[in-house]
């Protein structure tokens, strides 16, 4: 039963979950919660409890919205729209447009003498902090991209901007992050700038 459920696509799982199939909803959670958490990490800053609360809030909203949900778009489109709004509300309610002290960017730049030697998890945690310090419009596109893995066209629709804008924002964000980390801009980036 569990294996059969795991083979179903999102739309089939949603249909079963709407009929009261708890296993199907559990599979939806298992499949998407890590991505939602990754997307919301920069909104929560370094507050681990806040991140758990945000993930929980997103799925509570999904449960409330399931009966009226109409699959006109792929399920992740709906899910990450909810996640984005939840993250925005959290930032607004906590007056944390910049959850991380901007001076961290300079200190990060100064102390990163050999980033390639750092374990990925440490580098990843530092990146989350730096993403949190990005301007809102860049942070949102990065969060959706790394959380959902959706194509830029979908991300643009969620954000209400053209695909090209979403793509260029992601590029700007990556360049900013690289600069913050003190990483040499690759030749490819130099060509594209």
């Amino acid at each position, binding site marked *: 039963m569990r294996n059969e459920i795991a083979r179903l696509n999102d739309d089939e799982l949603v249909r079963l979950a709407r009929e009261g199939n*708890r296993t199907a909803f559990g599979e939806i959670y298992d499949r998407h919660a890590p991505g939602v*958490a990754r997307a919301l990490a920069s909104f929560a800053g370094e507050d681990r409890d806040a991140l758990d609360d945000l993930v929980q809030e997103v799925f509570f909203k999904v449960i409330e919205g399931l009966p009226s949900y109409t699959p006109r778009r792929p399920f992740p489109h709906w899910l990450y729209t909810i996640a984005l709004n939840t993250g925005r509300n959290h930032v607004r309610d906590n007056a944390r447009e910049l959850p991380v002290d901007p001076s961290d960017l300079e200190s990060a730049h100064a102390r990163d003498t050999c980033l390639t030697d750092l374990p990925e998890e440490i580098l990843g945690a530092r*990146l989350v902090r730096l993403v949190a310090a990005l301007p809102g419009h860049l942070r949102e596109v990065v969060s959706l991209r790394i959380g959902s893995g959706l194509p830029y066209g979908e991300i643009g629709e969620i954000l209400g901007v053209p695909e090209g804008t979403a793509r260029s924002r992601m590029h700007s964000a990556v360049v900013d992050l690289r600069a913050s980390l003190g990483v040499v801009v*690759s030749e490819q980036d130099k060509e594209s700038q």
Partner: protein
Amino acid sequence: MNGKIDIERLLMRIRTGIDPRVKRAVLSRYDQRFGSAQGSAGTVRLWRRPVPFYLAAAAVLAVAVLSFAGGRRFPHAERVATTPAAVSRDSLASAEPEQEWRFTQRDAL
């Protein structure tokens, strides 16, 4: 200076653990909303209480019902027992508590 790092790849591989209690809470909310019969660890299910709980509850309920019914069936039992006209002076003097109880019951019937 640093070597080349693929920022996008690092971003995509960021791991953010979620407290397992979040899933339990979410499934519990799902159960409340959709009435799932499968229950969850975070929900106290009535039919998952131990058997002694039901036995004790049934005993308490039975005592309560019997007490209530007894009071309704013999509403004047106590009053009759203490009314001098209903009991002779001799019988009052020699009456054991048990006799008095039988008398009031029979009288009420």
